């Protein structure tokens, strides 16, 4: 008998929301995560979560329009319409679970302004929104008594007869491998920021789920769409949230000018992220930066507002850059932040297409940053990602439960476990040739950050792809130096590097394939958006030789025809 009806891989917001939904739908559900659930990267989201439900003028349609426009028309409009329509109810659901959202004078939920949005529709908890939601979600998991495999690292998806039937995972505290079976699997394993150096992402954001699904035959979509956030700290890439600009911060160049006036005269600092990041990069390139940075200035907001509404940001600047934002502007620059692409799913979060336009194992669902349903298209709006995790996390939990209930109990072969054990034993057996995981990762991260950042071109992307191929070669002989079982992170980092290299390869290939500029993908050698040839998604599937086979899929347009994007 299968261990569980539904197994959720990942315990960030998407994963926990899926687990709660599956539990409420009556499934025997379990979650698995390589870190304790509350350590998941969702806790880093500072700014907030969007829903159109306040103010006489705001409407779901307006939220949809902003998202479609923000996506540079690459988002699938049916998925966006669904997400925006579900948003208000989902905010209420979160509030009922216990999230302590900020209130207005009447004691109702209050909002703040955010980039790319026509109205203030971002709900928030000071600047710890992600953490405040993530911890409440975990409270609900404890309440429901959902089985949670904590510090279990997934190494394989089990696929038999085209069906996903569970995973193989390392129990990190012992080093033991286990096979955990399920009638449906939900992937909610987050993004792949660490393929870039630096990145705002946590060290655990290594694209495991994207690569696992890809290797298991699933389709990856729009992998080239990588978001650079406009305000990251120079040293270690740590994020200063858009909440700062939402509250009214200025961006200044070395001459002290609010340079966004010249790039986005209406929305200025609150234009969408690709636009602001490019503006900053241009200022820096044209010599109006200081040490590769421009400045974020909040001094005019006053000490009180800075200490309360931007508490975390204030402390981060102090701790990590040694700068007191009350008296000084902070040097910032664009930094890798988010991946819009991912595992292709339909709005029901299925990774397979009954009609065969794209492929994936039946019984495998995906939601959150790992997935590309595609609500963000070429550029994600701030505070739309948390929304995506909860809306599609819920759908995934419910759909996976329904799917599991239709499945017969098929016994699963023990060969998957034996295979994984043999593979890891072979890794331990590799001779020490002096190569180190950290070094290879750094080379990859630097190449990606150099050539797949805010500005791209053919030669650069070819060069990055060449670097990735070279690293993939070296990876086949990369040793695991530490041979212990208990909490062996040398082994874990080795496996993660393999996942990241797969992702990096498809990111480069996607970028080379897309012969236009759209959203975050801005090519210096092809600066225009080309709706005739490229109003479509790029698609990658793993080929026989292990290299990606590229293709494309149409974009779903319901009622918003592409227009020129002006902010």
């Amino acid at each position, binding site marked *: 008998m299968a261990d569980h009806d539904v197994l959720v891989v990942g315990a960030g917001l998407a994963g926990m929301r899926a687990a709660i939904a599956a539990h409420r739908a009556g499934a025997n559900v379990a979650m698995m995560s390589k*870190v*304790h659930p*509350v*350590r998941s*990267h969702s*806790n*880093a989201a500072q700014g907030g979560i969007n829903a159109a439900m306040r103010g006489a003028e705001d409407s779901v349609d307006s939220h949809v329009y902003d998202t479609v426009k923000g996506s540079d028309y690459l988002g699938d409009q049916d998925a966006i319409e669904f997400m925006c329509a579900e948003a208000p109810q989902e*905010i*209420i659901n979160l*509030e*009922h*679970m*216990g999230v*302590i*959202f*900020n*209130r*207005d*004078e*009447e*004691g*109702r*939920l*209050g909002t703040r302004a955010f980039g790319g949005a026509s109205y203030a529709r971002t709900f928030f*908890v000071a600047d*710890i929104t992600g*953490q*405040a939601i993530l*911890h*409440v979600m975990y*409270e*609900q998991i*404890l*309440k429901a008594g959902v089985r949670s495999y904590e510090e279990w690292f997934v190494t394989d998806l089990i696929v038999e007869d085209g069906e996903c039937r569970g995973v193989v995972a390392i129990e990190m*505290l012992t080093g033991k491998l286990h096979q955990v079976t399920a009638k449906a699997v939900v992937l909610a394993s987050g993004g792949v920021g660490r393929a870039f150096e630096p990145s705002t992402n*946590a*060290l*655990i954001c290594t694209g495991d789920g994207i690569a696992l699904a890809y290797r298991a035959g699933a389709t990856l979509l729009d992998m080239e769409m990588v978001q650079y956030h406009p305000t990251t700290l120079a*040293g*270690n890439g*740590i*994020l200063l949230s858009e909440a700062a600009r939402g509250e009214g911060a200025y961006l200044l160049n070395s001459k002290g000018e609010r340079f966004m006036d010249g790039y986005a005269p209406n929305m200025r600092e609150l234009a969408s992220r690709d636009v602001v990041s490019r503006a900053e990069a241009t200022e820096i390139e044209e010599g109006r930066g200081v040490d590769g940075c421009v400045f974020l200035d909040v001094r005019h907001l006053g000490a009180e507002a800075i200490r309360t509404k931007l508490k975390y940001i204030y*402390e*981060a600047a102090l*701790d*990590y850059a*040694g700068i007191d934002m009350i008296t000084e502007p902070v040097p910032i620059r664009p930094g890798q932040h988010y991946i819009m692409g991912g595992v292709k799913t339909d709005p029901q979060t299925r990774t397979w297409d009954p009609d065969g336009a794209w492929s994936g194992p039946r019984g495998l669902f995906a939601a959150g940053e790992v997935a590309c349903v595609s609500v963000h298209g070429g550029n994600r709006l701030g505070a739309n990602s948390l929304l995506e995790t909860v809306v599609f996390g819920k759908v995934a939990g419910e759909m996976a439960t329904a799917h599991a209930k239709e499945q017969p109990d098929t016994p699963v072969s023990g060969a998957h476990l034996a295979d994984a054990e043999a593979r890891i034993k072979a890794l331990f057996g590799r001779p020490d040739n002096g190569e*180190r*995981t*950290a*070094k290879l990762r750094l080379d990859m991260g630097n190449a990606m950050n150099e050539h797949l950042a805010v500005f791209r071109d053919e030669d650069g992307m070819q060069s990055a792809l060449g670097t990735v191929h070279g690293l993939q070669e070296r990876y086949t002989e990369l040793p695991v*130096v*530490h041979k*212990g*079982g*208990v*909490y*062996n*992170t*040398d082994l874990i980092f080795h496996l993660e590097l393999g996942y990241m290299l797969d992702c990096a390869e498809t990111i480069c290939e996607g970028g080379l394939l897309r012969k236009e500029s759209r959203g975050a993908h801005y090519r210096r050698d092809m600066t225009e958006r080309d709706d005739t040839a490229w109003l479509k998604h790029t698609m990658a599937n793993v080929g026989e030789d292990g290299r990606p086979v590229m293709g494309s899929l149409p974009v779903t347009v319901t009622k918003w025809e592409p227009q020129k994007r002006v902010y």
Partner: protein
Amino acid sequence: MQANLRVSRYDPEAPEPSARMQDYQIEVPEHFTVLDALIQVREEEDPSLAMRCSCRASICGSCAMRVNGQARLACKTRLSAVAAEGEPVTIEPMGNQRVVKDLVVDLGLFWNKIRAVEPYLQPAGDEPEEEYIASDESMQNLITPMGCIMCGACVSDCTALEVDENFLGPAALAKAYRFVADPRDGASHERLQTLNEYGGVWDCTRCYMCVEVCPVGVAPMDRIMELRDSVMNEVGVTTPGARHVESFARSVARSGWLDETMLAVDSWGRFNIPKLLSQAPLGLRVLVRGKLPLPWPFHHKRAGAEFVGRIFKRWESRKQ
């Protein structure tokens, strides 16, 4: 700058496992945190070094460990701030918890305590159609305890937990406060009853360690003191701890200083002869050394006791 790190190592798979200290000397940039330095050690010197870390930005709560003897987040601690000339920076796993390997501890105890306070909203009655109406002030008040990143630093350095594992401890009590103070929660009274019991709010020794080590300003002890107030107001003065507080205040209000003998009698109960007898030798020793004032009825008023009494009166009238 040169970093001298003295790191605690423990390998459970060694033939005879035992903890030892290992020194590393590495060159690092001035702005490095303790975590940055440890990562450099792991990447360049010794990939077997085990520790938890993820966000590098003091938000995930993974990297609590003892730096120079005190629990801290490695990623929030600048190396230059803890390095003294010529001395190595010592790095050890958190206290009060079982070490799994090197700097990784078993957080089972930590989470069991969190679970013990039923850490989820228990609303009274049916959910409203829309959101619960609550003042912004009441929600803002919860941001501090909600800011807890569950890092375990406070539990590591809690002096009460060190002697009694049954104490719920600072993090779990701060979590409990988050629900007691949440206007949407309907179970506050039951929660306070439980917190009034053994292992609850009265077992804190007010040593202040948790306030000092908490990296995000939750100040668990302050939350515990707020819970004590709520317990006394809502459940009543029913435990030695609560009676201790009352007796303390009564004595000071009356005489301007503390009658420690009465404090014991009031706290433990006049007729709790066995407990009082067990305290007698201690009391006598303290008395002989001249560190105990004469007990009632010999407990005289201090000069200025009226002033002190007036402060109490003023406070009482304020409270009403």
